[in-house]
């Protein structure tokens, strides 16, 4: 029933919010993992009490933890994620300026992976020939076991060192120009995502193929396109969508490596920079964003999967 579906979606929304709370809590607590005192850890013992006290105050570590958490969440709701210790820029500004590059990278890879995976996955699954399924699964498991930075290195070896098709340094934010810098990292991500997505899609298509309702579609003489969508792809798509949203999160995480390799001014490289300079507020702020984006992705993925196929448990 409509109501039942609505209740499920609301339940999932509540879960997304409760996970977001913990994401916030973890981002807040993480600074407390520092052995000893964060201010001293950053400035060194020789810095003197005045300087460490000032930093502690700037990091809002000078009050009790409950008050700290309160002012932290309060700040969040007003868009205040703190100030970079290194540059003095507000963390939110840093996120705003770096996130677009990362999102472009992820979205382009996702789009490419989906476009490539659908024909491959359905073909392998629908043909169902055990020899080609076997070869396909072996090939994809090899791709999946290969770390992205090694794939990137091989890509650079061929496309930047041998022929200068993919510059490893520099970036322009404008649309067609940025593709010159983005295509190789996008290709690396796409390769990995395609392996995962087409693999899952092919096994769900294989499963769908054996279902009784497919017989019904053939018998009704449903048109080709309609048959492909309603009888092959749509019933097989839900697990793929769930996985895709999860993979987008993982790929987001992997940008910390990929953006560093290709010197892209995205949020991942920003984070590595902040880690190397102990820029605590920036690390916390970016971590929080990574968490929120992942939660939003998995919520969206579940919702789309449920919209496609009511059998999905969300």
């Amino acid at each position, binding site marked *: 029933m409509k109501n039942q579906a609505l209740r499920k979606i609301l339940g999932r929304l509540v*879960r997304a919010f*409760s996970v977001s709370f913990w994401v916030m*809590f973890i981002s807040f607590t993480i600074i407390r993992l520092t052995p000893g005192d964060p201010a001293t850890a950053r400035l060194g013992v020789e810095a003197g009490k005045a300087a460490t006290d000032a930093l502690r105050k700037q990091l809002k570590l000078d009050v009790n933890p409950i008050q700290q958490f309160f002012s932290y969440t309060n700040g969040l709701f007003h868009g205040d994620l703190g100030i970079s210790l290194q540059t003095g820029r507000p963390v939110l500004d840093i996120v705003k300026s770096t996130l677009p590059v990362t999102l472009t990278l992820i979205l382009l890879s996702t789009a490419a992976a989906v476009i490539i995976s659908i024909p491959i996955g359905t073909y392998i699954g629908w043909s169902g020939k055990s020899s080609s399924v076997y070869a396909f699964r072996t090939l994809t498991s090899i791709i*999946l076991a290969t770390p992205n930075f*090694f794939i990137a*290195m*091989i890509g650079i070896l061929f496309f930047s060192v041998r022929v200068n098709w993919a510059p490893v340094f520099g970036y322009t934010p404008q649309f067609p120009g940025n593709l010159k810098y983005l295509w190789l990292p996008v290709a690396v991500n796409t390769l990995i995502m395609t392996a995962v997505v087409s693999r899952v899609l092919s096994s769900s298509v294989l499963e769908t193929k054996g279902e009784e309702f497919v017989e019904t579609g053939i018998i009704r003489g449903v048109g080709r396109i309609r048959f492909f969508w309603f009888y092959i792809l749509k019933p097989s798509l839900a697990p793929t969508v769930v996985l895709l949203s999860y993979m987008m999160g993982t790929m987001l995480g992997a940008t910390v490596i990929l953006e560093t390799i290709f010197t892209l001014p995205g949020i991942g490289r920003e984070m590595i920079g902040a880690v190397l300079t102990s820029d605590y507020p920036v690390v916390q702020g970016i971590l929080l964003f990574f968490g929120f984006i992942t*939660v939003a992705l998995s919520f969206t993925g579940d919702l789309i999967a449920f919209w496609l196929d009511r059998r999905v448990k969300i």
Partner: protein
Amino acid sequence: MNELTRKQRFKNWLALPGGWGILIGTIMFAAIVIMGIVIPLFGPFKPNAFVGDPSVAPSFKHPFGLDQLGRDVMSRTFASVWIDIGVSFFGVTIPLIIGTIIGILLGVTKIKIIRSVVSSIIDGINAFPLLVVAVAMLAFFGAGLKSVIIILSITNWARYARIARTRAVVVSQQNYIEAARTLGYSKSRIVIKHIAPNVSAESVAYALSDFIIVITVISGLSFLGLAARPPAAEWGSMIADGRAYLANGWWMVIFPGLALCWAAISLSFIVEGMSRRDRGNS
């Protein structure tokens, strides 16, 4: 006679779904572990010794070539096995044990508040991509391999806990557990003797595929300069070092990379074989 039946039994085992995958994966994995022991112990060059000119291409004497500082890439590649596979081993087993225990307790506990709070903490931790949360924590812990193991222990347990919890709930509702309960066996006895063995089978199976993820994370962190630090021989950091010399020293990147892939692929063959065996198709 006995010999024959054993051979026959092996053949039968191999013929089952995924048999070849498990066999090849195991041989590949054993091979790299053995090389990781043999080459550093008995090889002619020490991994950190300067044994020739910088950036010398592969030759008969140095099959993998020499790196930018004139160290033998082959010795370094196999010396890395200790760090990559050894550290990953701890990075997997510690979360496996912690997570499985927490998950089982969560699955059998009757205290609702604990169940829901811990469960949502687990969801919260799992919300972050593993690599990101590891990188972030390293900012506070300070870089290094020891930090990486600690970080994996405090984050990765959540994935195991989720698997163990789900499984424990299923197992504890099974008939024989109910029977044991009505027979008046103590709760701890039921958990230890019946639930734990059942749950851990599944967790161990997941650990194998997690091994691949953890190797990738550790080498990735080292690649970023956050885990193993120079001059330690480690695949990720060797690749990072060789990066600048890619134009005329491809061997500095390719060989450690291939070794890393070899290890991960061998594990993934085993995982793939086992899952085929579970599904029971060929």
